C-alpha cells in the first residue's frame, strides 16, 4: 500500500512538472514583446528595455522557468501585468466564487443523481426506470450554459425568485451571495446528475447478479436488504471514479457558466487575461486549474485503493 501511495504521489508531481513545462514553453513561443505590449506603441526603447529588465524577460528561458516554479513553491505567482496586483491574491479572491460554485454543483449532482440511479435500478425494467433513463439521456445532452440561460428565463425573469446574474461578495451579504450561486450551480449540476444516475443504475444492476448478493439472499435477507447492505457499497466504486472526473470537469465548466451569469470567478479572470495578453496571469491561472484537476484525480485514485482493498493489492 505504501509503495502504491508513494508511486502515485510521485506520478502526480511528475505530471504537474511536465504540465508546467508545457504551459511555459507554449506561452514563451508567443510572438510579440510583452513589455512593448504593456507600454503601448509610443514607448521609448529605453522604457521597454527597462521594463524587460524588471520583468526578467532578458534572462535565459531556463532561469525564467525555474524562477517561476520556485516562486510558486513559495506562494509567489508573479504580478499581473495588466492589473498590477499579485496573481496569487487575484486568484484567491476569484476562487471565493468558483470553488463554492463547484462544490454546490457537486452536492446537487450527488443529491439528485444517486437517489435517482438507485430508484431506477430498484424498479429495473418498469416504466419508472424507463422514464428516468429517458430523462437522464436528455440531461446528458443539454449544454450546461444553455440550461443556465433557460433557468434564468424561468426563475429570474418570469418568476423573480432568484437574481439573473452578478455576484455580491460573501463578506457584504452572505445570503445574497449564496442566492447568486443557486442558478449557476443548478446549471452545472444537471448534466452531471444525469451521468451519475446512469452510472449508479448500471453499477447496481451489475452488482445485483454477483455471488455475494445470492449468498446474502440464501442467508435469508430479502433482495432489497441484500442490495442495501452489500450492493450499494460495491456499486459506489465506479461512481467514485466518475465523481472525481466530474469535479475536474466542473472546475473547467465553471469557466463557461460564469459567462452566462456574469460571475466574477476564476474563469472570468483568465478569460480577460487572454484578451489583454496578460501572460503571467494566464500562465499561473492555467497551472492552477491543472493542479486542481490532477489533485482531484490523485485523491480519487487514493480513495479508490482505500475503499477497495482488492485494487490496492493488484496495483502495488
Amino acid at each position, binding site marked *: 500500500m505504501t509503495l502504491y501511495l508513494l508511486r502515485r504521489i510521485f506520478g502526480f508531481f511528475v505530471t*504537474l512538472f511536465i504540465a508546467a513545462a508545457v504551459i511555459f514553453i507554449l506561452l514563451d513561443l508567443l510572438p510579440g514583446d510583452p513589455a512593448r505590449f504593456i507600454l503601448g506603441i509610443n514607448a521609448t526603447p529605453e522604457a521597454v528595455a527597462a521594463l524587460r529588465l524588471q520583468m526578467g524577460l532578458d534572462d535565459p528561458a531556463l532561469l525564467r522557468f525555474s524562477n517561476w516554479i520556485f516562486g510558486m513553491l513559495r506562494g509567489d505567482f508573479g504580478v499581473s501585468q495588466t492589473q498590477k496586483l499579485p496573481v496569487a491574491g487575484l486568484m484567491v479572491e476569484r476562487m471565493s466564487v468558483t470553488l463554492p460554485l463547484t462544490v454546490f454543483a457537486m452536492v446537487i449532482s450527488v443529491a439528485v443523481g444517486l437517489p435517482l440511479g438507485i430508484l431506477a435500478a430498484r424498479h429495473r425494467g418498469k416504466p419508472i426506470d424507463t422514464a428516468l433513463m429517458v430523462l437522464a439521456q436528455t440531461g446528458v445532452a443539454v449544454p450546461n*450554459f*444553455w440550461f443556465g440561460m433557460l433557468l434564468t428565463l424561468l426563475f429570474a425573469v418570469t418568476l423573480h425568485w432568484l437574481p439573473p446574474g452578478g455576484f455580491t461578495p460573501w463578506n457584504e451579504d452572505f445570503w445574497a451571495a449564496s442566492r447568486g450561486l443557486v442558478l449557476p450551480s443548478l446549471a452545472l449540476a444537471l448534466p452531471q446528475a444525469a451521468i451519475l444516475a446512469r452510472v449508479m443504475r448500471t453499477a447496481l444492476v451489475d452488482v445485483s447478479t454477483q455471488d455475494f448478493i445470492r449468498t446474502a439472499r440464501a442467508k435469508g435477507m430479502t433482495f432489497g436488504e441484500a442490495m442495501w447492505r452489500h450492493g450499494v457499497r460495491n456499486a459506489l466504486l465506479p461512481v467514485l471514479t466518475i465523481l472525481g472526473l466530474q469535479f475536474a470537469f466542473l472546475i473547467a465548466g465553471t469557466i463557461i457558466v460564469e459567462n452566462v451569469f456574469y460571475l466574477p470567478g476564476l474563469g472570468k479572470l483568465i478569460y480577460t487575461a487572454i484578451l489583454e495578453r496578460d501572460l503571467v496571469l494566464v500562465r499561473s491561472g492555467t497551472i492552477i486549474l491543472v493542479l486542481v484537476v490532477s489533485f482531484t484525480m490523485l485523491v480519487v485514485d487514493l480513495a479508490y485503493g482505500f475503499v477497495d482493498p482488492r485494487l490496492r493489492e493488484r496495483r502495488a
Partner: protein
Amino acid sequence: MNWTTLRRHPRLVIGLAATLIFAAMGLLSLIWTPYPITDIAIARRFATPGAEHLLGADQLGRDMLSLIMSGTLTSFTVAVMAIIIGVGIGVPLGLAAAIYGGPVEWVVLRFSDLAFAFPSVVIAILIATLMGPGAGNAVIAIGIFNVPVFAQVARGGALAISTLDFVAAARLAGLSRPMIALRHLLPNIASLIIVQGTIQLSLGILAEAGLSYIGLGTQPPATSLGLMLRDAQSLFLIHPWLSLAPGLAIVVIVIALNIAGDGLRDALDPRLKRQGLTNVAG
C-alpha cells in the same frame, strides 16, 4: 452488419437515422439554404416562425433555419476532425503500449495522465492566447482531449485480445509485433473504437458549443450552434426563441448520437454491454 441486425436494434436505427438527417441537413447547407446566411435584412428582424421563415429570423434578420443548417455542419466538422486527431494519435499509442509494454507503456500512460490533466477549456485558452480564437483552435483543443480517451480504449481492447490463441499463433508464424497489431488487433478493436467514436462525437459537439459560446471557438462570419447561442445571449430574455432553437438542435443531435452509440455497442458486440466505456463530459 446487415438488415436483420438493424431490425433487432431499433435504438440503433432511430439514433442513426436522426444523426444522418442532421448531418445531411448540414451538408445540404453547402449547396443550398432557404436564405443565404449572410443575407441581412433589418425589416425581417425577429420574424416569428412561420411560412416565410420556418424557424423565424435573428436580430439581423437572418433566416434561423439556414443558420442552424450551416451551424450544424460546423459543429459536426469540428467534432469529426477532433475525432480524427484523437484516433490518429491515440489508437497507435494505445496499440504500441499494449504490444510493447514496459517503458513504452509507461510513457504512453504518463502522457495520457498529462493530457487528462488539461481540461479542453484550458487547452483552448492556451491556444487562443497563442494564435487567437478560431474553429481550428476548438478542433485542436477537443482533439487533444480525445487522444488519451482513444489510447486507453485501444490499449484496453488490445490487451484483452492479445492473450487469445490466434495472436500466439501469429507470433509463432513469425509475424512482427507491429504487423500483429495491424492485422489482428486493430480489426478486433475496431468496434470498440467506433462506439467510443460516437460518444466522443457527441461530447465534441457539446464542447464546440461551449468553446464557441465563450468566444474561443468558431468566429463570425462562420456560424456554429454554439456561436448562435453566444449571439443570442444578450437578447434571449426578450427573444428566447433565438437561443431555444440552436440549443434544442444541440440537444437533439447529442441525444441521437448517444442513442446510436448505445445501439451500436449492443449490435457490434453484445459482450461490451457491461464494459465501462468512458462517457464523461470534459
